[in-house]
């Protein structure tokens, strides 16, 4: 019941000090004399970030991989130390595929919770350490691909933006050119998150149509581009 959770939040706020990190209290408070580590110290604070984070979004995994490699190559030519962070660095989705296929019945929310889990891993082990060393990291895909998928699957925007609120905003966001807009994904489901999610949803319920889903994701990315939330990947970075 919304009123109850609202009351809970208000009560919690009254006993919680001002927040430092986005999703973590400024300090895990010592309520009963216990020592608890400050999780917020692990979070990247934008003002201290030495490097840059470039997000590349799109619907096809192979295109994202190719675009990330191309951007890293261009940055290297310009003597900018850089690297790429790709989907499923944590092997979460790979391990799911190893399990019994009868268990692979999933909803969009479950897929996005797992996508966010993978993103937490990428931020912690790939993106933030590299940025702290002054490198430029190309994250392909990043947050907007997840949000576009969720919107296309009918999930509320607020739930999606709150879910990904742990992820720092990228300094620049680009989208790859979409090939064969009207078709679904022809590649393997392990090629990218959206290929995986499309295949898993279609296998889970007859109500999902992969071509329709992809076309709605593209519409979401078009809207993002129109609102200047990202721009087409061109020759200039």
């Amino acid at each position: 019941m919304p009123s109850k959770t609202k009351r809970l939040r208000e009560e919690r706020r009254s006993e919680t000090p001002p927040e430092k990190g986005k999703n973590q209290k400024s300090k895990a408070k010592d309520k009963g004399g216990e020592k608890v580590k400050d999780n917020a110290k692990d979070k990247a604070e934008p003002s201290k970030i030495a490097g840059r984070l470039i997000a590349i979004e799109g619907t096809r995994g192979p295109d994202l991989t190719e675009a990330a490699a191309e951007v890293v190559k261009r940055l290297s030519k310009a003597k900018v130390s850089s690297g790429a962070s790709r989907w499923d660095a944590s092997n979460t989705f790979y391990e799911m595929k190893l399990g019994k296929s009868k268990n692979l019945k999933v909803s969009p929310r479950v897929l996005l919770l797992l996508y966010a889990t993978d993103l937490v891993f990428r931020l912690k082990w790939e993106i933030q350490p590299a940025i702290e060393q002054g490198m430029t990291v190309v994250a392909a895909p990043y947050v907007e691909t997840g949000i576009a998928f969720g919107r296309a699957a009918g999930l509320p925007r607020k739930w999606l933006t709150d879910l990904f609120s742990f992820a720092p905003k990228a300094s620049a966001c680009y989208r790859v050119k979409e090939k064969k807009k009207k078709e679904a994904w022809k590649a393997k489901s392990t090629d990218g998150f959206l290929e995986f999610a499309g295949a898993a949803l279609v296998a889970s319920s007859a109500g999902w149509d992969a071509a329709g889903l992809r076309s709605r994701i593209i519409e979401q990315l078009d809207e993002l581009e129109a609102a200047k939330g990202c721009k087409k990947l061109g020759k200039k970075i």
Partner: protein
Amino acid sequence: MGKKTEAKRDESNRRLVELVRAQQEKRGLLIVFEGPEASGKTTQRKLFKTWLQSEGHDVVSTSWNSSPLINPLIQARKMAHSLGPEDYCLLHAADFRQRLELEILPALWAGKTVLADRYLFTALARDAARGLDLDWVLNAYAPLFWPDMVFYFEVSGETSERRVAAAKEPKFYEAGQDVTDIDDPLESFRAFIGRVIHEYKALAQIFQFVTVDAEKSIYDQHRAIRKLYLAGQRRSWEEWNVEAVSDWLGPNLQVPEAHLAQ
């Protein structure tokens, strides 16, 4: 929003409310057993299940962190001690959502009584104790699906620690060693369980848990639970759970029989 889309949405909402209303008396009850480690939840859940079955109820149980899809991922990462508070929270939220959609809701819709050995309140208490912002954790579990009754097994931190220590050494995450930085598991558990109980107490007030004194004998607790259950009331899904049911049925309000057939 266009007029056509708006009309379609209104029609869909009307159908949803009708579906939920029609199911209200036919559906099963969701009863949750919550409490700190070693508070006796599982013992009481089993006794209660046997009693309900003897009374002619069709009963199923669901345990925390038990989805066949997500649980192996969690176990592997727990063994490697590789989870931080945020991915710990997200993976458990995925496990919970998966069980809600594939086990709990289909069983309730089919008229079965579901006994949940821990529910999302476990996550709220533990994740808040790990220092995560409660708003963010609540969002990961949204839309919330409200149970009919929550039995909270109240024990002191000392009792919980004593019972845990008598049986085994607490595991790394159970002891909260990922956030306490304390090497000794039992010492870490002592520090962490105090925080978890503190969070549970706040939740118990807000979510109106039915408190069971878990320091009492097993038989006394069981008798109290039976009495409280008989005095309890069925929560109105129309008032509390429409959003979660709508999310489960999907945009086409797919008939639940399709879920049950799986």
